[in-house]
């Protein structure tokens, strides 16, 4: 019997309150190595709160979050070594060049032989001719790519992306999607939050749907389709609206977590 693979992200009964307002309530899910999990929900569903809690920016009010077995609250430094986080709006250091951003990441994460990886990484993300440009001169799409370069440089076990394709042109989008798939095949897990359901449908192995801070569905597209009375070829968009407009209690589609 094969050993169960260790999960890279384990969220158990996570809750986050702001005063009396519960932004997220009793959320549990897990991400396996090499898996691409999509996180979808309406505005205010709790997606960004969840991602920020996983990355250690916010402290959970309830529950626990582990990244590669490290509790993000009790052992944050070890936990933070395991992931890379790319927010929806990238804020680089305006006066640092692209290369200097990579230097900083290499130092912070103690990446060995980092400079050897720069060339390939910058070529992959079409940033080679911008390597000595300061970040304030880059366009929004370039900044997104810079953020991805910083993430991929340290070869994390999981990459957490919040609206990853904002500002990219079609070529850039395709390249990023290919990068994500390639790295997922190599064992890197991805947790990406997006409003672009087509992207999520095309890219993700499993989808987590949040509504008003609660999980209402988690599983593959086939598994989630079973929650709504739709035809077997229904798109994620159809399933999403069908599921979120239902008033039924949240149901776990399978025992996999």
């Amino acid at each position, binding site marked *: 019997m094969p050993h169960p693979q260790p999960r890279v992200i384990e969220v158990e009964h996570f809750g986050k309150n702001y005063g009396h307002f519960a932004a997220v309530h009793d959320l549990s899910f897990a991400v396996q190595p090499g898996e691409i999990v999509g996180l979808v929900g309406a505005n205010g569903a709790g997606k960004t709160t969840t991602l*920020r809690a996983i*990355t*250690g*920016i*916010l*402290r959970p009010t309830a529950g626990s979050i582990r990244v590669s077995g490290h509790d993000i609250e009790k052992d*944050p*430094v*070890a936990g*933070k*070594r395991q*992931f*890379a*986080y790319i*927010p929806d709006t*990238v*804020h*680089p*250091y*305006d*006066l*640092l060049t692209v290369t*200097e951003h990579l*230097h*900083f*990441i290499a*130092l*912070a*994460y103690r990446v060995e032989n980092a400079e050897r990886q720069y060339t390939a990484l910058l070529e992959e993300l079409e940033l080679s001719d911008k390597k000595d440009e*300061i970040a304030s001169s880059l366009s929004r799409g370039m900044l997104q790519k810079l*953020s991805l370069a*910083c993430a991929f440089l340290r070869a994390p076990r999981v990459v957490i992306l919040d609206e990853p394709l904002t500002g990219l042109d079609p070529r850039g989008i395709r390249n990023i999607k290919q990068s994500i798939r390639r790295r997922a095949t190599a064992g890197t897990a991805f947790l990406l939050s997006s409003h672009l359901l087509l992207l999520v449908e095309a890219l993700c192995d499993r989808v987590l749907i949040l509504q008003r801070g609660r999980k209402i569905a988690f599983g593959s597209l086939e598994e989630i389709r079973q929650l709504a009375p739709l035809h077997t070829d229904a798109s994620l968009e159809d399933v999403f609206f069908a599921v979120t407009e239902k008033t039924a209690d949240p149901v776990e589609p399978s025992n996999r977590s």
Partner: protein
Amino acid sequence: MNRALLYLWFVLLKRRGLHGIRGLRRPTSLIGFAAWVFFLCVLFHYRDEAVFAQLVRRESLIGGAMIMLGGSLFMGFLQRGLVFEPPDVEFLFTSPFTQRQIVVYRLLPNYLYALVQGLVFLALFASHLKHPLLTAVCMMLFQVACFHLATGAAIFGGTISEQAHVRVRWMMLGVYFVMAALYLRVAWDLKVVPSFMSSPLTQLFFYPAATLSDIGTEPVLREWMLRRTNTGAFPARALWESASYLGVFAGSAVASFWLLLKLRANIFETSLATTTRKAERRVRLQQGRSLAVANESRFRSARLPKGSLFHGVGAIVWKHLIVASRSKRELVLAGAFTLIYTGFLAALRGLLHHLMSAGGELPAPQVADFDRGLLAMLCFLAFFMQRTFPFDFRRDGHHLVGFRTLPISPFALALAEITVPTAFCLAFQAFGVLALMIFGGFDGRVLLYLLFGFPAVALALNGVWNLHYLLAATKRAGGKPGSASPVEVLMVAVLSFLIFYPAGWVGLQIGRYTFGSYSEPLAFGGWLLIQYSVDFLLVLMLAKLVQRFEVSRDSQ
């Protein structure tokens, strides 16, 4: 300290330095830098003067230290969390750095500042100090300790509830007031609190915790015996005393650092909120929008005005009036400032009245001239007031493109935009006039001067400043950054004085070449005519600017 953070700090420092130097190519930045250098050179040239010695007397140093300490604690506490740059949130908060490392990284610029400040202090005051190097080092270490305290207070302030924060804030202010009053009393023999505050009569302000029968009695006061500190330069110290001073200050810096690192509070969540708030303020500043965000989100909507006064371009005036009615903070600030300003003038007039009624003699024309002088100072209030009422192009700067589509003439639009702040300036000045009339007497002629002169001045000041605001707004609409440098603001401030030169010159010339009782009214009339003409030209310039600015393709 983490190598990566040190690398980041050095690279950023180098880049900012180079960026600053390259920025000197802009004329306004160069002027500003030159002004600073000139100022420092002047200070350095006159560093041997007696006034510098006064600044490093024991009492002054103690007072300065109290201000630094109290100010650090209070400002840190008010911040409610550490302020980071947005990139720090993205790169540092999610990277494998401990909180302590991040806090130390955050303190590095402060250490540099303390070092530079210490060097400047040494350069300016060395000749007045017995042990200049020791004093400078101690001052540096004290500054470092203050930064530690400010950081600790910020972290602590972010962890407590809003209610507790408000309470502690007021407690701190109360303690600072008491300490400041004590210090002024003991060191400088200045009594901040008037002596009648200890009399039974003041029980009235604390009713019902009062004994009513005492309120009618005479207050009996006895002075405290004030103990004065020894004034003068630092006495001679033996080497071990120097070492003990150094040890104490170094110990306080180290102890405060240790205490800071012992704080267990989570800095990320509170700092994220504070950083986001500051970033939003910066964006609002860059966009030329008001910094004050309304605390309330629900208001009762104003009714549609019935009269024709607010039709057409009057709608803009109506809009500004609604905004003004919901801008309590600005109005309270303006009211408080007017109270202080006119209170001072009224007190002067009251003092003159009191001296004259106590037997002092002053010819009536001189009293009249004194009153006119006070009125002239009151006229100057508009210079400060117009900055307080942002109900003009400051708020409407990012609606310029939309205004272009309105069926109103640019001249009317420009006039409507400056109407409300001008009216408010005049209203607050009217309050000042009433306050002065308690003791001062103004004849009909002076009142007429007020009636026509004050509006001319208020209109001119609002016109000049709105030209500046409109220029910034049109730059933003054109896709360029619109925030003004301090030098540009200074230039506008100078212009707001020069704008009165033509009319003033004409008035003076008329006064010089006319005689008799008609001289003054003629001079005033000439001044008024020219000033209103200048005001008309200002409004015309505003109108032209509104009509002609370029809109960028990317603007909203």
